[in-house]
């Protein structure tokens, strides 16, 4: 088991003919992920071919879903069109939409989030590395890779990883794999101030997943999502959780790369998040180099 996606998940890629989307569709195919459809408006009927795999391209997500029974989507559409692309996936009743796109206007995401209220579709991202459920093959081949994460650093196993940052997720995964410890699923929820899935959402899924035995939660400055997750873990947590918060040295009022990584009005500080972690019994890694070791000591 795993959360959100399995090696059998049928993936469609929105924006498959763009340079970025194409490159990562290829890498997902190489990883053994079931890439079953592509969507690029106006290019319906064409075929995306890679390593002997022929992926049909459709004009609309609805058509792609009807023809290929895809249940999940990776959105690689440029920022001005990304909100529309996400809502198209919601309209087509996908189980999961993973928005990789960085730079979507906040107001667009406020509207998307409101429009998704009551819908059964889960949105991950935007501005995120995506999801990986590692496979059983060499270098975790045969898993489900949605997004831009390097598949080969993973290893099939029992640790869940959730993070707002891409490379910091890879860092944690790499630390685990180097110590011979595998992952159930790794989820990058994204660095924007408005996102589809929160730390708490993913933590709840990991706690309910019998195949996940421990969790690494990585946060950063800005907002209060980490505090909310910590509060829930304090009351309902059943598995060891360790984590790290990036940005203790960031100057207040400055956006640190991610649109959501900002301490404003004294809110969203690393200190407040570390305090919430400690109060909830979450293991705090003294440095980002010790994320895996901190968790493994608790298990």
């Amino acid at each position, binding site marked *: 088991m795993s959360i959100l996606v399995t090696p059998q998940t049928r993936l469609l890629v929105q924006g498959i003919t763009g340079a970025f989307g194409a490159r990562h569709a290829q*890498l997902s195919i190489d990883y053994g992920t079931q890439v079953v459809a592509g969507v690029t408006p106006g290019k319906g009927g064409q075929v995306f071919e890679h390593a002997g795999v022929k992926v049909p391209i459709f004009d609309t997500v609805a058509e792609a879903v009807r023809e290929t029974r895809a249940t999940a989507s990776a959105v690689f559409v440029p*920022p*001005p069109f990304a909100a529309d692309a996400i809502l198209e996936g919601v309209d087509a009743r996908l189980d999961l939409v993973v928005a990789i796109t960085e*730079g*979507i*206007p*906040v*107001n*667009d995401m*406020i*509207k998307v*989030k*409101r*429009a998704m209220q009551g819908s059964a579709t889960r949105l991950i991202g935007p501005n995120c590395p995506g999801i990986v459920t590692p496979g059983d093959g060499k270098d975790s081949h045969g898993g489900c890779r949605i997004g*831009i994460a*390097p598949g080969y*650093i993973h290893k099939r196993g029992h640790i869940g990883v959730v993070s*707002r*940052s*891409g*490379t*910091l*997720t*890879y*860092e944690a995964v*790499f630390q685990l794999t180097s110590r011979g410890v595998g992952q159930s699923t790794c989820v990058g929820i994204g*660095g924007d*101030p*408005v996102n589809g899935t929160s730390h708490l959402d993913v933590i709840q899924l990991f706690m309910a997943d019998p195949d996940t035995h421990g969790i690494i939660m*990585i946060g*950063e*400055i*800005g*907002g*209060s*999502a980490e505090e*909310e997750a910590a509060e829930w873990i304090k009351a309902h947590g059943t598995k060891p959780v360790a984590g*790290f918060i*990036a*940005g*203790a*040295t*960031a*100057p207040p009022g*400055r*956006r*640190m*790369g*991610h*649109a*959501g*990584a900002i301490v404003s*009005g*004294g809110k969203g500080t*690393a200190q407040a998040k570390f305090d919430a972690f400690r109060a909830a019994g979450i293991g705090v890694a*003294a*440095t*980002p*180099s*010790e994320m895996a070791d901190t968790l493994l000591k608790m298990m």
Partner: protein
Amino acid sequence: MNIHEYQAKQLLKQHGVAVPSGEPCKTVAEARTAAEKLFASGHTLAVVKSQIHAGGRGKGTFKHGFKGGVKLAKSVDEVVDFADNMLGKTLVTVQTGPEGRVVQTLLVAAAEKILKEFYLAVLLDRANSRPLIMASTEGGVDIEEVAHKTPEKIIKEWVDPAVGIQPYQARKVASALGLKGDAFNSAVKVILGVYKTWWECDASMVEINPLAVVETPAGKQAVLCVDAKIGLDDNALYRHPDILGMRDLAEESPLEIEASKFSLNYIKLDGSIACLVNGAGLAMSTMDIIQHFGGMPANFLDVGGGASKDQVSAAFKIILSDPNVKAIFVNIFGGIMDCNVIATGIVEAVRETGLKLPLVVRLEGNNVAAGKATLASSGLTIISGDTMADAARKVVAAVAA
């Protein structure tokens, strides 16, 4: 992106919000003309406000000794005298740092007779992804302190983005502020307009402090925005070319402007260890780990997920133009990007810049063996770190040595 007060007031005015009459002035002559117009139209008091992207202007001091970046003037001559002391001069406030900012524009505006001051802001509530209108009867003071000490004095009204703000919501806020009659009606209009400005301009924050009840020449009460601050969502600027035109490069750090030309995300800090990292989260963590081992980061620098050789080279030049830098820490987790491309970029940049400072490189990920070989065979003195912690210890030691 941030804009000046006078620009914020222009945007507010375009959205139907009342602001005191006034004009931006870039020269003393313009200030004289603006002042003459104000006094001729019946105003008896003008205010001369330095336009810089930093708070605390009123209590600031100019480097040549002139006190106050915001001054009240009773005559045209007084406006001219103040303009002469402010324009082209460097204003130091609690927010500018000791180097201060050069005042290039003044706002010369009517000083209204203020009866009462309030606070009004619109921002995103990240906890529920909805726009939030925040108001308080405690205007003209530090709102963070009010929120901390007397949270009951903060009025909050959330807007459903599906339908937008409804007039009753503005009435609720105006009523909670204790306004009546003309002032109530006037405040409702201002609140609706401020929200509209926030939404339509894709602002991240619109803050009116103070929002003031004033007495009009006709003896009635009206509400207007005496000070205004607007921050904009950088991601949405592509659909607002007019607002993008308000960008003032003089208010930004030259190194940060240079970095943005190469799509590098650079923020200058005060420490001595420069960092070059891929990914925002890893870049922040790199700063944190430097401090953990007793050093101080000189900057935040995210070269992005697909950094090219040119970007690495540009990044080196930018971090080396900071005179405080005593050592460099390159921390790359190349998941997809080829570590050898990065290594080649580093070697070229070191040769090009004739780097003399200690350089610690931690390289991990795709094709890392080739990358490490490139560094080792370059003949350059590059200290290699196996993990982030190992590299951080080494770079801190190099600075201490």
